[in-house]
């Protein structure tokens, strides 16, 4: 079973209240030097069968029509190989 990760982030021009709240809290906790924080979602999909081009295309479609609302969000799809290291980064879409 292979794992595909879909990251969904608000588009840069869209307000991210959650990220802002985190960023504003950091100095109060004694952490300086973080200029910006954006918070998004991470989906880990366990795919049955091979993650070939067709499967990736399908996951791309899931991501763009269901996991993300592309009116306000960008997403990216990555196949995770081995333990933890990502590869085959597929470019973010909008």
């Amino acid at each position, binding site marked *: 079973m292979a794992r595909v990760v879909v990251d969904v982030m608000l588009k840069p021009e869209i307000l991210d*209240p*959650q990220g802002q*709240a*985190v960023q504003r*809290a950091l100095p*109060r*906790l004694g952490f300086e030097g973080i200029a910006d924080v954006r*918070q998004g979602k991470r989906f880990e999909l366990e795919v049955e069968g091979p993650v070939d081009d067709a499967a990736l295309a399908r996951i791309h479609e899931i991501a763009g029509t269901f996991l993300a609302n592309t009116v306000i969000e960008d997403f990216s799809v990555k196949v995770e190989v081995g333990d933890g290291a990502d590869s085959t980064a597929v470019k973010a879409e909008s």
Partner: protein
Amino acid sequence: MTARVGVITFPGTLDDRDTQRAVRTAGLEAVPLWHRDKDLKQVDAVILPGGFSYGDYLRAGAISRFSPVMESVIEQAKAGMPVLGICNGFQVLTETHLLPGAMLRNNHLHFICRDQKLRVENAETAWTRAYEQGQEINIPLKNIDGRYVADERVLDELEAEGRVVFRYQEMNPNGSLRDIAGISNAAGNVVGLMPHPEHAVEPLIGTGRTDGLGFFTSILKRLVSA
């Protein structure tokens, strides 16, 4: 001289004024406390009310936990001062680790607002003395992050020590493990629960019952007898 109960307002706290009203209804003096002030103004007990402090962004209660006022609350709680966390206040108490476990998104993923039946499993804590052991009460529940979780070891410990203070009856509204609606610390002075007793203190308002008043009269009893 009547007992003074502090009610903390964090940015985004919602039920602070209602909690103050409930405190007054029970014949106690309500003292507003502000998140930026470490000074607890010599109160005899503290309530962390419900709401969405800091929007519940990141995780419910996660940001409030670092407020200056919480430093004093933690210190006093450890010294035995009665502390009650209602809903968001309960979430803050778990985030500060004054109470074990954590609160997660409801298993059905929706905000839920309903009249909820609870059983008082421990009528010995600072906040439940006005109730009978095993008494059923009906008070409003309203939250989206109300699913109580902790690992098995912690849950067993809570059960063994009688620290499960409230359990959901008839239906579990959010997937909380072992139907837990509220717990206490080992000493019984710190109690947290998801439902809202402060919204059940007047016959006309809310559920139309006054089942929640006992929380506030319990603390009066304790403070007067202390």
